[in-house]
């Protein structure tokens, strides 16, 4: 067989123009057509080492599903993914593939890596359209497991355990399931319909989801330990870090969680048809350089009446933790980047935010994180006039679930301490994963933890 020429660039994923898409909250990416998907799938050389699988926290059989796409067997491709990952349409959209599977793709050494993320989303979406296969379930074991939180970690662990025949109940604090997939990630990046579609797997598996149920309040962890044979905590990183500068409590200053929850979960972009308002004024500043900051900035850009949106970040664009793709999308949509800039204080008038005093920064030696440390340039202070500011400077584990719990090891930034192989906590029969053990991390990291925990819980249930 002769050597075939491999196209060096990814087949671009069709997306809506920036001008068009900032008028609404519909998805930016249109996704591959079957023809484009096949063409991209053919770029995979089916290398025998498949480093991409190693690069994936849940070990999706990447070459196999891509081969099925190349053969036009799209539904089979989705089912192949689902052997390891029940949420292909979600992960295809929000995983940082460039740091995981695509980072180590062999094709990437010759040019751009295979667009694994877009192919995964394509397969998931395709199957959803033609009809999802009912997942297989083992015979009932009679064991009961409680899962705290219905975000990516909770869903994954629940699905794995239910498939193994255990009876699973998920406890969700909010009125909708999905966790950060619903309240955090905006619809233009991950439509809620996609999330609800993939959540159907829980129904199919007979997982009970109890909404409006706050563990730590409605019930405490100890009660769950008595009522269930094992507990998995995946309560996420629902504790926003605040910037401790003057004027923090002026009207118009939000934490990213509040801003995104109002818009995404509560539908504030459809106010007053939906009841929840969000106040923005004309000029919005977003403080931070991560994915959440990009989500907030792009959300603000789409809201009625907003004219100017700034990203204020203390290092340079190169150091931003956000995905390159997100930065690119934000810039395309007209978000103004004020890098090497640090907020000093919020300025108000009659209790309302009017501006933000900033100082210019320069980069010095790298710090512990390996990124160059920003230091203020004396006397470079200046003011940006704004009506609203949103802090997207990170979040930590929400402590509510751990309240009044004895014997649970908690780390110095509030995270639950676990054994890294099994996700076991210091409490017998209690496991934890996702942001509650890492602080702010990724959807796929949470899912990776959840799969590890599910395997460990399964083992634990049979030992006991």
């Amino acid at each position, binding site marked *: 067989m002769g050597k075939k020429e491999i196209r060096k660039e990814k087949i671009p994923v069709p997306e809506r123009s920036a001008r068009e898409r900032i008028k609404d909250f519909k998805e930016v990416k249109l996704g591959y057509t079957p023809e484009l998907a096949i063409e991209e799938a053919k770029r995979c050389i089916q290398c025998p080492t498949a480093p991409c699988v190693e690069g994936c926290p849940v070990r999706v059989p990447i070459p196999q599903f891509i081969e099925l796409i190349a053969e036009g067997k799209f539904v089979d491709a989705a089912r192949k993914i689902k052997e390891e990952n029940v949420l292909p349409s979600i992960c295809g959209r929000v995983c940082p593939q460039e740091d995981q599977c695509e980072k180590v793709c062999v094709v990437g050494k010759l040019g751009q890596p295979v667009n694994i993320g877009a192919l995964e989303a394509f397969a998931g979406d395709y199957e959803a359209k033609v009809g999802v296969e009912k997942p297989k379930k083992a015979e009932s074991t009679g064991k009961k497991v409680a899962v705290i939180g219905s975000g990516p970690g909770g869903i994954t662990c629940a699905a794995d355990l239910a498939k193994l025949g255990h009876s699973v109940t998920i406890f969700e604090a909010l009125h909708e399931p999905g966790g950060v997939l619903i309240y955090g990630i905006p619809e233009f990046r991950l439509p809620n319909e996609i999330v609800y579609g993939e959540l159907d797997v829980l129904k199919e598996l007979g997982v009970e989801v109890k909404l409006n*149920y706050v563990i730590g*309040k*409605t019930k405490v962890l100890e009660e769950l330990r008595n009522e269930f044979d094992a507990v998995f905590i995946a309560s996420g990183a629902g504790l926003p870090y605040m910037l401790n500068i003057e004027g923090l409590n002026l009207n118009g200053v939000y934490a990213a*969680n509040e801003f995104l929850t109002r818009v995404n979960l509560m539908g504030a972009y459809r106010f*007053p048809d*939906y*009841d929840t308002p969000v106040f923005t004024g004309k000029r919005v500043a977003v403080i931070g350089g991560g994915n959440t900051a990009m989500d907030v900035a792009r959300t603000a850009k789409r809201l009625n009446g907003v004219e100017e949106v700034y990203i204020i970040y203390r290092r340079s664009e190169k150091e931003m933790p956000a995905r390159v793709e997100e930065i690119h999308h934000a810039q395309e949509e007209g978000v103004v980047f004020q890098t090497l800039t640090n907020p000093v204080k919020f300025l108000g008038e009659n209790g309302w935010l009017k501006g933000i005093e900033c100082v210019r920064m320069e980069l010095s030696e790298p710090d512990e994180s390996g990124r160059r440390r920003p230091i203020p340039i004396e006397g470079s202070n200046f003011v940006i006039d704004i009506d609203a500011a949103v802090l997207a400077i990170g979040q930590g584990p929400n402590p*509510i679930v751990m309240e009044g719990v004895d014997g649970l090891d908690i780390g110095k930034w509030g995270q639950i301490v676990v054994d890294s192989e099994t996700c076991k906590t210091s409490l017998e029969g209690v496991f934890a994963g996702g942001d509650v053990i890492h602080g702010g991390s990724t959807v796929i990291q949470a899912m990776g933890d959840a799969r590890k925990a599910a395997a460990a819980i399964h083992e634990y249930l049979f030992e006991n």
Partner: protein
Amino acid sequence: MYRILKKRELAENVDEFVVEASEIAKKAEPGQFVIVRISKKGERIPLTIAEKDCDAGTITLMVQRVGKTTFHLSCLEEGHVITDVVGPLGKPTHLEKWGHVVCIGGGLGLAPVHHIAQGVKDAENRITTIMGFRREDLVFWEEKMKLISDRLIVTTNDGSYGMKGLVTDALQELIDSGEEINMVITAGPVPMMKAVAELTKKYRIPTVASLNPVMVDGTGMCGACRVTVNGEVKFACVDGPEFDAHKVEFDELINRLNMFKTLEGEALKEFQKKHCGCGKE
């Protein structure tokens, strides 16, 4: 299912609902609240648990019609179901045997004050309750408070019922009478709580206020309910809602309660266009 079992109008624009919520009733302690959402497009609003009945599996909520959601809520009747009720949220009231406790509630502040006073009584304290209203026809729950309190003082701004004046006037009289007061607990309109705090600070009487800021999730996730207490930023939903009243920045709270006023006004206007003025369909 959060079914409304009983509903009655307590006063002009104030409704009382007894709602089926057995798991919440089992856990609810004085000082705690729930978050309620009444339709698929609805907002989440915090409401204090005014009373609970573990045997019946119910909680009692008191609602003042001020915005779209509360007006809409007043359209619901017995047998209707509230879409979402979550709780009990917030820290329970810190209770101990202080001696003589004065519980001060203004208007809807009676909701937290009622449940808190029950706890204060169970902790073997002597209770004087001061409840303040603008006029006689706005007075409610007097009998209920009488049952818990050793002494009850009702004030109205215009003197149409009880003592003429504000709750702080009644409190001043009590202080002037020389009677020892070991603790004051207050809930109601922010300017009232502020006035109570200023008065008791002068006499160094420990005082706790139950705050009512804007909330969304109610679990410490969003930070909408930020208040400044003793110079520190606190989340009222998880760190409170009760704080040392002498350390709360009430003016900031008053300002923050205005953050969405204009938008909320628009929403209410839209709602009332479709319904008659009183909010009923």
